[in-house]
């Protein structure tokens, strides 16, 4: 057992955050939240990325608000009850949530520094995400084919933009995922690679939260309410 004072030495980890102080030397350690000097890089990177996610959520909130305003403006066209099939949406939801679960597994594999399982779990994460995108693409092409494309009415413009924007995020996430897998493979579990992986997992889970909003506010309420 180490004494409390030695636990506060530079390079120690008093809060069990799993990181070691990178500012070894004259600087006192950690936090930045109070007054102990600059926070370690892992905290800075994660914190910055959280703020990015917040800004991204605000962007989605604009699209949600526009959808809410325009949802009733159908210009004589079809509405949510005629267009949405909750079984497809349930399948999409399942794929996306399972993908997030696999992403969590990948975090564990990275924590154990196990390259094989990292690659396997990330590959499944990507596969499930691609499955989600395929279902979404099928839904979109179906809607366009029956004359309910985004140019038909303000309601459909807002619908395609909101759901499509989430789809673009998933696509960009897949691109990032592929790059991340290649990086983990070639560079190993280097510190800055792990920081990036942390950001990727945050991003991937945040997309789930957005999807839960879309599922509830667009599909569920749209098909339940008259």
């Amino acid at each position, binding site marked *: 057992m180490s004494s409390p004072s030695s636990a506060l030495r530079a390079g120690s980890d008093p809060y069990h955050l799993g990181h070691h102080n990178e500012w070894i030397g004259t600087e006192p350690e950690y936090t930045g939240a109070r*007054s102990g*000097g600059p*926070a370690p890089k892992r905290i*800075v990177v994660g914190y910055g990325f959280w*703020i990015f996610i917040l*800004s991204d959520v605000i962007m989605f909130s604009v699209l949600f608000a526009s959808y809410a305003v325009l949802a009733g403006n*159908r210009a004589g066209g079809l509405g949510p009850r005629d267009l949405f099939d909750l079984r497809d949406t349930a399948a999409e939801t399942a794929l996306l949530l399972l993908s997030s679960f696999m992403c969590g597994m990948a975090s564990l594999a990275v924590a154990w520094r196990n390259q094989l399982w990292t690659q396997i779990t990330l590959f499944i994460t990507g596969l499930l995400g691609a499955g989600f995108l395929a279902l979404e693409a099928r839904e979109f092409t179906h809607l366009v084919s029956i004359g309910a494309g*985004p140019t038909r009415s303000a309601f459909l413009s807002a619908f395609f933009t909101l759901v499509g924007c989430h789809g673009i995020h998933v696509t960009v996430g897949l691109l990032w995922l592929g790059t991340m897998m290649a990086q983990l493979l070639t560079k190993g579990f280097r510190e800055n690679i792990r920081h990036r992986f942390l950001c990727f997992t945050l991003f991937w889970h945040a997309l789930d939260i957005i999807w839960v909003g879309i599922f509830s506010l667009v599909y569920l309420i749209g098909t339940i309410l008259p």
Partner: protein
Amino acid sequence: MHILGKLTWDAVPFDQPVAMVGAAVVIIVVVGVAALVLAKGYLPYLWREWITSVDHKRIGIMYCILALLMLARAFIDALMMRAQQAVAFHAPGYLPPEHFDQIFSAHGTLMIFFVAMPFVIGLMNFAVPLQLGVRDVAFPTLNSVSFWLTATGALLVNLSLVAGEFSRTGWLPYPPLSELAYSPDVGVDYYCWAIEISGIGTLITGINFVTTILKTRAPGMHYTRMPMFCWTSLASCLLIVAAFPILTATLAMLLLDRYAGFHFFTDTAGGNSMLFMNLIWAWGHLEVYILILPAFGVYSEVVSTFAAKPLFGYRSMVIATMAICLISFMVWLHHFFTMGAGGDVNAAFGIASMIIAIPTGVKIFNWMFTMYGGRVRFTSAMLWAIGFMVSFVIGGLTGVMLAMPTADFELHNSLFLVAHFHNVIITGVIFGVFAGYSYWFPKAFGFVLDETLGKWAFWLWFIGFWVAWGPGYALGLEGMTRRLQRYDVAEWRPLLLLAAVGVLIMLAGILVQLLQLAVSIRTRAQRRDLTGDPWNGRNLEWAVASPPPHFNFAVLPQVNNQEPYWDMKQRAIDSGHLQTPEPHYEPIVMPRNSATGFVCAVFATVTGFALIWHIWWLVLLGLAGAYATFVVFAWRDVQEHIIPADEVARLDRANRAARSQALSRMRADELVVHE
């Protein structure tokens, strides 16, 4: 389909002489500067020390240079508008309507997005890490990306002079006018893509500085010890993080309407143009506070330094700043009381708009009480601050008038409104960044600017502003609406002529500022700032040499109170120990230069230009290039370089020697005063 999309030779305005002169000037300036750089062999130096630099000080200086260049362009627009209105009484003037409309749109767009924003962000970049006592921002390479994306936006706006035309819909592209049916040319597309791209840069800046201020501060710097400029920068960056995603999404919806036939704001097929007004002002009202809050921070620094007193009411200032930050979310509807939302809604937003004047008033009183009883030095920076206090109160009061829905129905879209926002933006934001410019110039370049010419510049700007925009209030009350290309009301004529004289006085102010810069550079040997503390400053940026070393602080300073550097100086003078014992120097790890930002901006420019002209293969190429750039950046193995301990020691010893000499002089002065 054409391989260059909509781009043909018709895009070049050969038939419009005035526009052609503008195009020629842009081409001559760009080609001339490029030729000069290449001929003199400056390129390797510029590439190594500036273009690829991730140093927050260099990036800050580049932001300010960009802002000054765009100020020149946008001020020429202002001159052209004032000249047009001076001659267009019962006459067509020299600018045809479609050209006049482009000029007022470009003037507003440039002034807000590419003058005020980069100048404010430039000062933040330069001063915040120094004031926090740290070595760089949280994400140095992203900081460079931010700058270069902003530069891309500015470049695209100016490209519209050469190829095609700029937006004719005002500085905010109100639909349905900005929809494809009414603006079929590329003007609105130039606007939208330029703002989308530079907006991403601004968002990254916001994220970067929120993280920097909240997570990287010198040891001992509690929140209540942060300099006021850091507080206001924090508030401003929080607003950026909250507001710019709204702008991005709103313009994206407008672009979908224009490019893909969507119906967000078309007023047909269920689209609703008032949705655009709400969304754009949900961003736009935060934007004015994004601009003014850092300016308030600059005034706080300047007033307390030149009154030689701590800032009066520091905590109330912090509360006022954060109160403005919060209330600014709840007032956006006052930009369109005439929408017809009803008396209750209008009253709620009107009251919220009046409430926001209270924390601003708190700030004005705090600055006055800081000066009260102080030994005020009337330097040019201080003059800008005092000119601001006098003028901004008037701008604020006319704002409260506009916040009353009943009055607003009369004043809406009149020149009274235009005079009001010029009053707050010019005498608030622009005076603030000029105060910051003369205050921090010696820190950035190691020599002080000529004070006499600086004071001349202030008086010309101050008088010029009131001669130009004082009549604006009167014209608005006489019923003149904004954006008139011609008019036939005889009563307006003398006031518009007076306004034209005012803008010429402001032009003289700008010319004096250029002269000031030229004279100061030529005589820089006599105006060197050897101590790093030319103004007897109070915060940590004055504790380092001028210009600061690449790593800012040899050893991170220990902060013990609100004014750490003033405290260090006073303790040294009082105790007579002018030199603290030499610290133990260690090697310093700094981020390496990176071309990522610049290369990204090249691809962003290509992508933006291709999108504007519907050149789809080039869009794909640009996006693929941007992705490749990030992969290359992500793949590098060495991200940092190490400055050896003896190099750190060498630089710091020189600074310490100069500083202890200055302190001994100050001690001698103080002994004289006490006797």
